């Protein structure tokens, strides 16, 4: 860390822009060091203030189903990025890149690429202006 001050700085700047999610319940619960990608079938998309969340079911190798909940930013932030209250509907196939809570529960935050029914969906960007062109991520 000491040998790479610019990276350290970058990490801090990035974390500073994670705000709309950080606004509630903070960052401490999430493992920011590891992104995971999970595919599944949408069961519910909740457009809510101050946070939205997506529920989907993912089947494991042995057929067991995990019920995932992935949180997004506030409606004003993500609607500026092309998301809406009707972005997802039950039965949609999604592949979600996220960070997961440290305790291993199937709870995450959108963090990176998303595929919806085989097509790219606007990635979740946590910039304070809610503008996808706002360069808040590396």
């Amino acid at each position, binding site marked *: 860390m000491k040998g790479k001050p610019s990276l350290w700085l970058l990490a801090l700047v990035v974390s500073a822009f994670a705000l709309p999610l950080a606004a509630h319940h903070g960052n401490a619960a999430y493992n920011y060091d590891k992104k995971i990608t999970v595919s599944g079938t949408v069961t519910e998309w909740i457009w809510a203030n101050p946070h939205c969340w997506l529920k989907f079911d993912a089947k494991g190798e042995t057929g067991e189903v995990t019920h995932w909940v992935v949180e997004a930013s506030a409606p004003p932030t993500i609607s500026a990025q092309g998301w809406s209250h009707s972005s997802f509907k039950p039965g949609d196939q999604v592949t979600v890149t996220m960070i997961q809570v440290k305790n291993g529960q199937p709870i995450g935050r959108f963090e990176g690429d998303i595929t919806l029914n085989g097509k790219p969906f606007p990635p979740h960007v946590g910039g304070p202006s*809610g503008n996808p062109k706002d360069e808040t991520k590396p």
Partner: protein
Amino acid sequence: MSTRAAFSAILLTALLGSLPLLRAQNAPGTTEEQVKPRSWNSGPPPKKVYAGKKSAPAPRHDLSGIWNAAAEGGVQAKGVLEHPALFPDHPQDDIGEQPDESKIPRPLPYTPSGLAALKGNKPGVGVRAVGPGLVNDPVDFCDPQGFPRMELFEFRVVEITQNKNQVMLLYQFYDNWRVIWTDGRVLPDPKEAEPRWNGYSVGKWADDYTFVVDTVGMNEKTWLDNAGRPHSADLTVQERFHRVDYDTLELTVTINDLKFYAQPWQALNKFVLHRLPDDYDIQEFFCVPSETEDYNKLIGTPASIEAPKK
């Protein structure tokens, strides 16, 4: 034919007559090309859009307009630390390596009672971040942000409008608004007045382009920022809105609470707000208690459970 000529003359006169109005609506330096005209639920453009923009001169005694506070970092997720006056060399630390506030370079001048109050506030972010189950940030429960936190956290877009007696600020975050009286009334004695979330505000023009607002009487239920900085009932706040030019407003916010801080300090220092187009539609941004409760049940609480020790 003569009727048509007369009609054309009337039309031409009307068009020429409306030119000043058209010019006013398209004042130089506005960001209309960045925000789709007359669209709904607009998003504020980022900082780089404003680089090198030329602007018309500031109008006299006029703050009215829709202002972008997000572009220059008004969201301040981790508290007011990133401002150079407080944290000169590096941005904020969110990973909890400095849980002791006193180790922050140039810490705020807490009094012993201020430091004790700080320790009682458990933020979810910043150098004193605690686990999600321990956070006691009132905003997480949809309590009002109160003043001045509304300018020190999630300061996104604010519309300012004024009449002969008032300047009104409509803040996007949690759809909050406040009134600053300019009719010459004096502030109430905060020891007598009913405490308010947003306090009592009066303002006056210090010069043609600088509007100074004094606020007292805030209740003690609010935090100053997202990092859990406290204030007492003795808090008074001074805002200086300086209209630099048509498209730029600078805001300085000075915190004066001698019970909790040994000296006044600036939470915002010439913080820049950029003017948005007059047809910018501010998207609503409520905190909805029932939805927040659902969120807490589904995400907040399960995320707070400690993993079993292996």
